[in-house]
């Protein structure tokens, strides 16, 4: 249930209940993000209590990518099955703004920037 290629990797650790994003995620459009959307959805289904999205090593995420992540946050809020924790890095400029903005979609998302 992982996605790995030369540009990026998305790895779901079921035991840790975390999804780790690395590299540079710049797929062509929202449709191209379908496999990512499926991975997020499957990880959500398999997890209980809390799911962590770790973006600390994701250098770049394009607009279609943030749309996919935001939609996942909305769906998680609507199902209200588990809590979401989002880890980001202050040294990557887009993360500081965009990850905090996820709270506007669901105030209970725990965004931690380090």
């Amino acid at each position, binding site marked *: 249930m992982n996605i790995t290629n030369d540009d990026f990797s998305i790895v779901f650790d079921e035991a840790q209940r975390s999804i780790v994003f690395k590299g540079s995620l710049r797929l062509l459009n929202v449709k191209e993000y379908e496999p990512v959307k499926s991975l997020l959805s499957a990880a959500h289904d398999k997890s209980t209590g809390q799911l962590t999205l770790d973006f600390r090593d994701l250098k770049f995420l*394009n*607009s279609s990518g943030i749309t996919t992540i935001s*939609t996942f946050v909305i769906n998680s809020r609507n199902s209200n099955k588990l809590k979401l924790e989002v880890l980001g890095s202050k040294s990557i400029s*887009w993360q*500081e703004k*965009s990850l905090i*903005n996820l709270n506007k979609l669901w105030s209970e998302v725990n965004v931690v920037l380090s």
Partner: protein
Amino acid sequence: MSGTKEELVQRIKQLEQENSDLQTLMENVNDHSTALENDLEEKNKEINSLINKMKHYLSPQLYDSIVGGTITADLEYHRKMLTIFFSDIVNFTTITDSIEPEILSDCLNLYLNEMSTLAMNYGGTIDKFIGDGIMIFFGDPTTRGERDDAMACIQMALKMQEKIKSIRAFWNENGVPLNLQVRMGINTGYCTVGNFGSKERMDYTIIGGQVNIASRLESSANPDSVLISESTYTLVKNAVTVTPMAPVNVKGIHYPINTFEVKDIPTEGPQKKKIFEKIGDGFVIDHIIFNPQTTGEDTRTKIEHALRSALSIVSKSGKA
């Protein structure tokens, strides 16, 4: 429409939530795009700043070719007809021993700066500075044709010799006992031009026997003179006045190279000495003799221009 009032109210609330989500989502995506654009702009600024710094280490032609993408950073090379120029200060080693290093550094940088400006004005590619020596070539990355490249190189060399006289006078006047004399050698021939070195550190330069000939001509030239090979002379003989000199032997070349000392370029008219010559932040001004009854209009204009330029520099230096 069907459904109870409660169901409709519920549906409206649901639609309002979706609408609100969509609006927030759009704002978030906009914020994200803006953050990326700003980041991109910052990165562009950094790149431009680095490119500007890099500019000072490259000749303008080479810089334009690299930034414009016509030259790649690969270890590639090709053969091309070039005119190669070498210059060297006479007895520079003796000079370095007799002058304070700080003064010498200032003098050398001023000299190299003035020579570089002339090289760029005439379209030469500055290959490298070798201590006080300068290596320039004409014909790559851009060429105006073999003859025009050779001609531009000779014009540049004569202009440099003219400038050197002014620099010499300037230094002597400023208490620097530096008898600046420069030898120059020019040769034309096929060279291998391109990137040489390793993938990590490469130089865009020229190599080949013709380069060695130009270097040898420079070391054989008289002080304050420009020595050219027969292959260069053949290209420009209708435009340049020369004095035939003794042939020189070059290591690795199995025949003597006929040489010629350049005197002037008659079509450009006699090399009139300039009244005013800017040197670095200062200037040298020649003896001015002005007689309202006998000085012609042309000379009067030159004197006026020289005095205005001189006054402007003196005035600026006083305010600094």
